[in-house]
């Protein structure tokens, strides 16, 4: 049933030309240089220090590394992060 639903969504993306983040639950990340990062569609904060932010996604994790990280604002599905960002890593669940 779940597999079938996923296949239907992929078809919808291809046929209707819809943006992927709307249809399949992946995050939309907007970055302004290395200074600011705006992440939509997250599922909660896993770990937050000055050098690292680990966010839970529907299907894995998002790891942001940097320096002097500050969460300027946080909502249920959105995070605005500021600081000196040095790396973004996606960790996919198998």
């Amino acid at each position, binding site marked *: 049933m779940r597999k079938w639903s996923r296949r239907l969504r992929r078809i919808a993306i291809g046929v209707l030309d819809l943006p992927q983040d709307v249809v399949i639950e992946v995050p939309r990340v907007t970055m302004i240089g290395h200074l600011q990062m705006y992440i939509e569609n997250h599922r909660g904060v896993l770990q*937050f*220090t000055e050098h690292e932010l680990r966010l839970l996604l529907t299907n894995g994790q998002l790891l942001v590394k940097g320096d002097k990280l*500050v*969460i300027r*604002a*946080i909502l*249920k599905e959105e995070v605005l992060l500021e600081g000196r960002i040095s790396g973004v890593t996606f960790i996919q669940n198998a």
Partner: protein
Amino acid sequence: MRNVVKEWSEGHVTVTVRGKRFERLINLAVREGLTIWNITRKEPDLGQCEMMIADFHRLRPLLKETGCRVHVENRNGLPFLLLRMRARAGFVMGIFLFLIGLYMLSTFVWQIEVQGTQNIPPQTVLRAAGKAGLQAGSWKWRMDNPQVLQQRIKLDIPKASYVAVEIIGTKAIIQVVEKVEGEKPIIQDSKHIVAKKKAVIHSIFAETGKTMVKVDQYVEPGQVLISGIIGNDQRQALVPANGKVEGEVWYRSEVIVPLIQNRLVYTGEKQKRHYLLAGSNVLRIWPFETITYKHEKKTEKRYQPSFFDFSLPIGWKMEIDRELEPQIVRMTEQEAIEVAKRFARKDILKQAGEDAKIKEEKVLHVKQENGKVYISIYYSVIENIAMDQPIIPQVPKQEAGQSNQNN
């Protein structure tokens, strides 16, 4: 995403959170719909964030759940400001009293300016304004409006034809337009017109008064030409006589003209000199060597930049020297007579007045002696011979004061 105005007006706090499960706290808070921002992690078990006051109270059950402790670091916004103001009530009262005082003081008139007066003294205007209720220190609310004021001030100053009152802040401006007095007719004393010189009347025209002489009549100085007494024996009246009398007057002028004359004539040689002026010092710049002429005529030009009353102490002077040369000029007798006539005419016209006309010119006598020509010329000139004479002779205050050009 953030509403700064709302944050300030409702008040927000900066809190530090001590505890191991900081991330869990944030997730729970977000899920509950709390607004938190500026989240930082300072140490592994110490975080900091900001939140609204209302949300701070909703945080308490979540803290219990995660086992964290909060400590308020900073309070910001209007509610806290009001609290602090309550503690300093006297200070706040002072601010408001000051503002009220400033406003109250601005409802008075502190300064009155009178504009446009030339003959009326400003004190008179100020006094009239004071009577109407406008003076330094009067309260604007108790005062009538400017239209009424200017009406009253105008009634108080008969010499003013218009008064405008304008109040700008604490300053009242009274603009006065003065009445322009009509020209008073000059009252003339009754007078005669008499002859100034010995003459034969050439033309006589009386505007007022009675003509006493006829054309071609010989008159002596002081003889009445136009009488100021009019009427017959029964009824008489005195008037200021006025009119125009022209008479033929004779002059004889003697002129001596030397036949050999020494004159200075330009040779055409000249020299330009440039000087620099600094204060009262003069410094020649060009030329290095100057030529001095035996006879010369100097002309000078100065350039000194000036701005209104201030002039720069530095300037420039240019001098031109023109060389002159003595020359002997010989004249014939005929030329000498011409020169004599020219001088004599100028002299006669000076004696006779500007509007005089030379009627006749006759050379009476020419004599040559010792290199000089003696010439006597006779002139008959038509000129104005009228002169005023007051009729009341007891106090001749202003004999010729009133000329006959009044009308």
